[in-house]
């Protein structure tokens, strides 16, 4: 080892070396005094131990004083000097050594919490292969311009955010969305920097690079969340401002009354509310960090503490409990062929943007070309619209919000809508139709009637499949003692059927978007802490009304990340019980830490005032309590 590397080694491990040296000297000095009668030698070694261990502490104490902050290092320095002055060398060396050891261990463990997120950033490769002037070039990932095409080999990490323009592959998106299963990517699909291309080569047109990627935004967001003080933290900070000066006044007062220097110095040592101020931030930072690695963004400690109190979770039905991919399940004609019903409905709905309309139009386009040819496909490989029906435009068209559409085509008036729209227009519903509708609705499907010139000619049943995870998620929440509610615009019967299928406690049907907000407000008025799960865009108002708004599938939609209290990066419903349980665990963890800290301070104060606790034992308990709250908080990193 040459001189330079020794210096480097010393610099890097200074704290450990200083602590170990001071510990060895302390042990040696104590042993010498205990075993032999070399009093002077023992004293000299103990003073040396104090100086070696105390130099850095005193230096920081000097900075604390000159910057007018009152920290534990100032108190420890005063206590150590005081102990030497009154001849308690053993106490002085012990205090300094125990404090160094404690803060060394605290620094090390905190480093782990602080670097937990950095590991995510290191997932992004430093360089990218781009096509420039027809040639492949290796450039720093930060310098890739928007619109440039990046090539990623199988097994390579994706260096930028972008859109696939060529190739097909499975991409592991765990760093961004927390999903463990790889996601299939092909032309037009969005990919994120930091994710891993597992199978085929991909060409990606860059939409964001460097600091402008989803992963970077997530990390910035998470750090802001970790730094935002929770209500408990600000309360403690306010308390801490008065606690330390109060203890110093107490120490001076105690000396004036008792003339007991050890007692006053010990008060100084425990005068820093260590575990109390350190505990809650460690719990919250660990929890937010853990959540981020599992694809759940939490907005901050305040929201996390509130989420820990959730006793009701409301789910939007469409796109949350269900896949949000509505398809036509059945078409029934009443005196007319089913095909005709479908194509008429498609024409009427063509200009509507409702998701039911989209499903009807798609079904009409994709339906078998000719019912007579047994479903054989006509080979017209060069035409992408092969076998697809074109849908004529309606002559005119009106949307009746929440009810359906009224259109004119070929001199006919066509009404496509629910029972409410039929009632509005005094259209008679024959029992045959009502029976069909009831039967389909009891299966959880939504039915629209198709009316031509005042007569019902058919009905279309639409289905939105449940997510496979939905029943398990609802059950997991119920197991955790949380009430579950489904909110939907669907009719009563459909809602009841879906609610039963998912096993949810309660449902509210036939809700208009603004009704969802009032439902949530009503639960809140009952004193419940309500979380609302939705897609973050259509459900934005109810997410904002709820105590905790949880947005699903937030990767790529910045508004959802910005507005929701919790954002699930993937469309993964299973993260909800995890997030709710993590919040509850965090709330408990914070309480445990506060409780432990208050207990320690109380016991220490009582011990000091009754002279059971002296400098060294006071310091030992103080440092042990700090380490304990840090380790307890860090359990949340592995939750």
């Amino acid at each position, binding site marked *: 080892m040459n001189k330079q590397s020794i210096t480097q080694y010393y610099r890097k491990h200074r*704290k450990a070396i200083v602590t170990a040296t001071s510990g060895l000297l302390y042990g040696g000095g104590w042993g010498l005094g205990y075993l032999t009668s070399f009093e002077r030698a023992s004293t000299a070694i103990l003073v040396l131990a104090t100086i070696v261990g105390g130099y*850095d502490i005193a*230096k*920081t104490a000097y*900075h*604390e004083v000159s*910057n*007018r*902050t*009152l*920290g*534990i*290092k100032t108190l420890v320095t005063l206590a150590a000097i005081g102990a030497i002055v009154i001849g308690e060398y053993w106490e002085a060396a012990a205090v300094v050594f125990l404090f160094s050891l404690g*803060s*060394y261990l*605290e*620094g090390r463990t*905190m*480093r782990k*919490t*602080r*670097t937990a*997120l*950095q590991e995510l950033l290191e997932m992004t490769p430093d360089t990218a292969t781009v096509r420039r002037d027809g040639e492949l070039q290796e450039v720093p990932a930060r310098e890739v311009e928007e619109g440039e095409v990046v090539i990623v080999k199988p097994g390579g990490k994706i260096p930028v955010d972008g859109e696939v323009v060529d190739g097909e592959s499975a991409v592991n998106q765990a760093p961004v969305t927390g999903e463990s299963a790889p996601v299939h990517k092909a032309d037009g699909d969005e990919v994120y920097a930091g994710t891993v291309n597992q199978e085929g080569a991909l060409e990606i047109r860059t939409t964001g690079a460097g600091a402008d990627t989803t992963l970077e935004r997530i990390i910035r967001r998470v*750090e802001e969340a*970790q*730094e935002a003080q929770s209500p408990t933290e600000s309360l403690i900070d306010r308390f801490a401002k008065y606690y330390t000066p109060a203890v110093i006044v107490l120490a001076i007062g105690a000396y004036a009354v008792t003339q007991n220097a050890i007692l006053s110095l010990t008060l100084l040592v425990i005068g*820093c509310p*260590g575990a109390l*101020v*350190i505990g809650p*931030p*460690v719990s*919250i*930072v660990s929890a937010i960090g853990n959540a981020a690695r599992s694809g759940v963004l939490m907005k901050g400690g305040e929201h996390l503490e509130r989420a820990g109190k959730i006793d009701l979770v409301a789910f939007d039905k469409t796109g949350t409990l269900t896949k949000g991919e509505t398809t036509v399940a059945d078409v029934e004609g009443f005196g007319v062929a089913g095909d005709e019903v479908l194509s008429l409905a498609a024409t009427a709905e063509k200009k509507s943007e409702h998701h039911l309309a989209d499903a009807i139009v798609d079904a009409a386009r994709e339906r078998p070309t000719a019912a007579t040819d047994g479903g054989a496909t006509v080979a017209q490989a060069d035409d992408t619209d092969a076998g697809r029906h074109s849908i004529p435009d309606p002559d005119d068209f009106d949307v009746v919000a929440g009810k359906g559409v009224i259109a004119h085509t070929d001199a006919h008036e066509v009404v496509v809508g629910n029972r409410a729209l039929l009632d509005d227009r005094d259209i008679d519903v024959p029992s045959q139709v009502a029976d069909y509708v009831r039967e389909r609705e009891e299966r959880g499907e939504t039915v629209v009637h198709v009316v031509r010139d005042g007569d019902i000619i058919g009905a279309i049943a639409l289905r939105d499949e449940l997510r496979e995870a939905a029943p398990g998620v609802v059950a997991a929440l119920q197991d955790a003692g949380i009430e579950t509610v489904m909110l939907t615009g669907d009719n009563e019967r459909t809602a009841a059927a879906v609610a039963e299928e998912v096993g949810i406690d309660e449902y509210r049907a036939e809700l208009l978007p603004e009704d969802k907000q009032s439902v949530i407000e009503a639960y809140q008025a009952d004193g419940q802490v309500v979380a609302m799960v939705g897609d973050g865009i259509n459900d934005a108002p109810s997410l904002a009304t709820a105590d905790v708004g949880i947005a699903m599938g937030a990767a790529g939609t910045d508004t959802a990340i910005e507005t929701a209290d919790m954002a699930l990066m993937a469309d993964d419903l299973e993260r909800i019980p995890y997030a709710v349980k993590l919040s509850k665990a965090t709330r408990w963890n914070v309480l445990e830490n506060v409780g432990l800290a208050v207990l320690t301070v109380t016991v220490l104060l009582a011990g000091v005032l009754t002279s059971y606790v002296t400098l060294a034992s006071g310091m030992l308990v103080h440092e042990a309590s700090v380490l304990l709250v840090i380790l307890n908080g860090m359990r949340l990193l592995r939750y």
Partner: protein
Amino acid sequence: MSDTTQFRVLDFDCPTCASTVERALSNVDGVQHVEVHYATGRVEIEYDDSAVDPDAFAQTIESQGYTPQHA
């Protein structure tokens, strides 16, 4: 012109240590705004780049007994 720089200090061992560094940095001439976060170890400094050389910040942090890393 106002500019911003960031450091990461991984070895803060108590919340007061972070406030001490925050005070020390805000006493450097040309510094307009400082944020030091104990929990994440993130240091953000907004400064007037005609009045101060950003190299001074790392030195200030070191002189307080902590190790700054460029973020």
